[in-house]
């Protein structure tokens, strides 16, 4: 995602930061359904590409959604993931694990698409499970947010996870 448009005003940037803080809180409270229905656009594309370690001289193009992804999700895919959690029969989440999203480096740009914002942010996701299992996932997000009245919705999210080998047993979480 190229930098597009002009930097948002202080007030708009503040609104977006609060949007992300709310999103993080819903995740941490396991309110996935509320997150999906109140913060995600029905046409969302939610994508975590699989990236290789390549030499600088390697001219092959970066992956596109056609190359697949650890997430390559539509709204209904995200809905399926959440429905699974809602069955009450996901044994690895019972007892539930703890998760904490720290969101930073938020840059908000007004785009030439009316009502659309282009936003960069970074995440540090801490997971703690069972007695003493812990993992840390660090990376960045490239979002397109859409304004709908007083609210915003996530229309696109590209997640860049800063590790080749995922140093965690799975990524059954939301970024």
């Amino acid at each position, binding site marked *: 995602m190229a930098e597009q448009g002009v930097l948002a005003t202080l007030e708009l940037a503040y609104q977006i930061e609060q949007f992300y803080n709310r999103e993080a809180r819903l995740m941490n409270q396991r309110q996935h359904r509320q997150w999906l229905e109140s913060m995600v656009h029905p046409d969302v594309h939610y994508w*975590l590409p*699989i*990236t*290789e*370690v*390549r*030499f600088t001289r*390697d001219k*092959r193009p970066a*992956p596109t959604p*056609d*190359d*697949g*992804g*650890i*997430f*390559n999700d539509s709204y209904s*895919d995200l809905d*399926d*993931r959440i*429905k*699974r*959690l809602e*069955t*009450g*029969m*996901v*044994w*690895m989440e019972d007892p539930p694990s703890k998760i904490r999203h720290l969101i930073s480096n938020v840059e908000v740009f007004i785009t030439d698409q009316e009502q659309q914002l282009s936003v960069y942010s970074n995440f540090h996701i801490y997971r703690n499970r069972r007695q003493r299992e812990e993992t840390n996932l660090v990376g960045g997000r490239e979002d397109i947010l859409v304004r709908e009245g007083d609210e915003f919705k996530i229309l696109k999210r590209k997640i860049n996870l800063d590790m*080749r*080998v*995922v*140093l*965690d*047993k*799975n*990524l*059954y*979480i939301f970024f």
Partner: protein
Amino acid sequence: MVNVDSLIDLDKAVQSKQVFWDQDIYDQEMENIFGRSWLFLTHESQIPEPGDFFTTFMGEDPIIVARQKDGSVKAFINSCTHRGNQVCHADSGNTRSFVCSYHGWAFGIDGSLAGVPLETEVYYNQLDKDSMGLREVALVDDYRGFIFGCFDEKAPALVEWLGEMAWYMDSWANSGGGAELIGTPMKTILKCNWKVPTENFVGDGYHITWTHVAALQIIGGPLGSAFGAGDMPPLEDMGAQITTRHGHGFGVIWDVGHAIHRNPQNYVEFQQQTLPEVIEKQGEWAGKMYTGHWNASLFPNCSFLYGTNTFKVWHPKGPHEIEVWTWTLVQKNMSPELKREIQKEAIMSFGTAGTLESDDGENMETCTRTNRGFQTRKGTMNASMGLGVEGRHPELPGVVGSNFIGETSYRGFYRFWDEMMRAADWDDVIKNDNTWVDQWLGEGAVSKLPALDAAFKAA
């Protein structure tokens, strides 16, 4: 050398818990199993052009697999012959040489030492470059595009190593234009012993009904209604479990290859178009295999789900950790759109963030970690389900369990693990090639799996 004589009780089908934990057993596995077995390297579709390379592991040894100028494939240990530095740090690419980052030694894609900086000035032309190429993996071959390597030149040929398993795999590896792996592999760690996922994929139809119940309820379809909603068909009509020489094995559920796909219409249509080709080449039983859903492992550390079409290698990283590498398996004649559809469903279910993958990882880690306890690992694990009701089948090769849910393939896997761990060399293994079924079953044991006519009637 560790005493491996009493780790596996073949008659009772129990295994010492030490096999998931002890460092000395692991070290012996590196020598006897990873040092002697054919190990999956990559698929030819991942390195199509001369100069294409892919880096992987055989056991814990770092390996470069490279397509040669003449189209053949070679594999080398990814370690400089000067001071041992790794010479290639990329996952894949195309190159004319691998240049070591330490002193700049350059190796050709054929592994030969092509360039040494200051060779004349500092080695006075006394360096025998011809003998200092990258160490080549003794045997490299492919079976229908699946490239394997083996460190032991006395091993049987790859086609013999796969043996009767190759006949079963041909139903999809030799139809529809053949099979290929697509995409960049996902890589994840699991803190488990490498045998835990291998044994799970080789023979665990049992856990599907419980471990994956949440995901299957959401996916729906035939497995969703059978396992997710408890509407189980009669077991003897459901499928089969089969193990072949060298510890390979699989379980198959008839007619539901597409079961984990949420919108399988295009996939089912392709399978129905291809099915006559399979039957013409290999007969009706192969057709039954082609439209089934498989959980399978190739000894020692390669597994796949045919139908769901996820393909995995479990790279050992010490006795208590693995790297999971995951590709998507498709048939070449599928349209690009269908391949993408299958890839999406394969990753949604058994990718790093998969709805079923995450169920398994937890179990695999805990099955390993509990054995940290000294008293715990004095105990044994049990794989006796269906013991005594497996046998020969008049129409199917290998040892055939009597229904899909059983542990026949677990037993096949651990019987061969035990054989390899105790063998002095390959001759010690080859001598059992014609007698392994008799040694296991005695004479006369016959599988209760129905014959072909009955199986089709059930479907």
